[in-house]
């Protein structure tokens, strides 16, 4: 189901002695990678709101990918049904990716008031960000895959969040976003650090089996840096605000 070559690498570790354990490892590894893909997709969807009018085709394709993952996870049973009270909590700022990335921050944030459609959606990721090192982010990503409670219960609200993403594509108001950013204590550029952790960190990610696209000699135009370049741009805007 995933990009070719990944599963083979995991299966290669199987021995008769390890047997079932190895099988479990393969499955979990796949779940972990799938989860990483889901998180990456959600971040992409949010990022595309930050700059000029989002590319609708790209957003639709990413959203469809997210839906596919969601469907598969529902079939697997790894997607827990949401409890009614959880759904009533403001779903917009409980987007999955932010939970994975900054679980330590949750305790301080407390409950958010249900925000308006256009800006609340973007308030979530910004206010939840906290200074995390790549290593921390990696551990969060890892642990989230194994954690069956906590973040899972919020995932049922995910579907609604996705729909609201599309509404924001029509009603986005960036000037509102900048006001929100100006109140944020945690520096936004840490998202940069977090994403670096996601992309090229020491721990296995969804692209682990792949050499990565950066050439062997360090080059300024490494292919994986285009997202970060975008982030730099956003950071510049924010730091000046």
């Amino acid at each position, binding site marked *: 189901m995933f990009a070719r070559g990944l599963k083979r690498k995991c299966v290669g570790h199987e021995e008769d002695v390890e047997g079932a354990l190895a099988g479990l490892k393969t499955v979990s590894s796949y779940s972990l990678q799938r989860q990483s893909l889901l998180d990456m997709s959600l971040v992409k969807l949010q990022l595309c709101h930050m700059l000029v009018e989002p590319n609708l085709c790209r957003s*639709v394709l990413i959203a469809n990918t997210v839906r*596919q993952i969601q469907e598969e996870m529902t079939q697997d049973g790894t997607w827990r049904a949401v409890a009614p009270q959880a759904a009533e909590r403001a779903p917009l700022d409980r987007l999955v990716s932010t939970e994975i990335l900054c679980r330590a921050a949750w305790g301080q944030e407390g409950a958010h008031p249900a925000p308006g459609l256009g800006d609340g959606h973007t308030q979530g990721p910004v206010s939840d960000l906290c200074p995390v090192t790549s290593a921390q982010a990696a551990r969060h990503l890892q642990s989230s895959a194994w954690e069956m409670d906590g973040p899972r219960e919020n995932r049922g609200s995910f579907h609604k969040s996705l729909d609201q993403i599309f509404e924001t594509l029509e009603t986005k108001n960036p000037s509102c976003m900048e006001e929100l950013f100006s109140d944020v204590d945690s520096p936004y550029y840490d998202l940069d650090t977090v994403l670096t952790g996601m992309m090229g960190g020491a721990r296995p990610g969804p692209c682990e089996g792949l050499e990565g696209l950066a050439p062997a000699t360090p080059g300024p135009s490494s292919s994986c840096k*285009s997202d970060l370049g975008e982030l730099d741009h956003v950071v510049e805007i924010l730091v000046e605000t």
Partner: protein
Amino acid sequence: WVGRGGGAGGGNDIQWCFSQVKGAVDDDVAEADIISTVEFNHSGELLATGDKGGRVVIFQQEQENKIQSHSRGEYNVYSTFQSHEPEFDYLKSLEIEEKINKIRWLPQKNAAQFLLSTNDKTIKLWKISERDKRPEGYNLKEEDGRYRDPTTVTTLRVPVFRPMDLMVEASPRRIFANAHTYHINSISINSDYETYLSADDLRINLWHLEITDRSFNIVDIKPANMEELTEVITAAEFHPNSCNTFVYSSSKGTIRLCDMRASALCDRHSKLFEEPEDPSNRSFFSEIISSISDVKFSHSGRYMMTRDYLSVKIWDLNMENRPVETYQVHEYLRSKLCSLYENDCIFDKFECCWNGSDSVVMTGSYNNFFRMFDRNTKRDITLEASRENNKPRTVLKPRKVCASGKRKKDEISVDSLDFNKKILHTAWHPKENIIAVATTNNLYIFQDKVN
């Protein structure tokens, strides 16, 4: 391969040679200089490029020098003008980019040339005309334009035209605005030469070239509830001969052919072209790589070509259930899809084009490589647009990407490819074997070797 002039080849392969390169030399690319579209006119004498800064540059082929017949005429700058300016949408508080998404030429009807250029929201009809004479000898005006005092005029003379240095003027003749909520991705001129279509992510509009305050909506795939949106329009084109027929492609890899005679709103297609998915290749990225980035009818009108992320497909209009030919552009990327998704390269929109006789198709790839597929011989070739081979009449050396295993000499491994050097836009002269290939900010012109 096609021999000279586009007719059936004599069994000799074409040898592509470097001819010219236009644009800045340094590696530091100014964003405004990024080429966003390339298009030959109907005779091939003119070659237009549009860039991210909203400018259009037109090159003209100089007349072949009969004595120096070792190469065809060179293309030199003919006209440069600012087509679109950045705008601001006050309602949404968003910038409207001035980037030129597409240029389409009108067939020439008189001395002037006409083209349509579009950004995300507005289409403009430009008239490009030459002026090589100027009137002199007015009675009431001095040569510098100042008015004479009529009382000082004692004799009358007839003004005459005198030659002057050639001046090429571009003037906007029509502005077709305010008809698209979403971003325009295609424009296509109808074979009736009176109407044209413009397509954005969710709608297609039909315009008359003379009328700017009205357009007809002919396709609308916007769902009543935007939450249900799962598919967008990615490209559209009129049939080259049937003025009632057009096609549009989608992000789900389908192409719909519509007949405007059937109804005013062509939401119901006449034909739906879709290839069943290969279950063995299924992944989370299947849909994204099936998204069609370009659709082009053959000159004959019998076939159409689509480009998706990894392949080029040729469809026979009479067969909807699968393409008649499929060519792999860079299959070695299939195992890298996750990384390409991460860095957004998987969303790159490559275009494709036919040669004049519909026997060869061409499309771009990464690392400034571009590919050609000969439909008759089934041979393909990979070439590189690079300043390293920039001596005129240097034959381009075929390139090869090593997917895995031992890399042979002169091959390049997948991991060494530069994904920032992408060739998205290519164009083929309608009659000759001359091609224009756009790298990020340079335009390369290649020709076949002339003996």
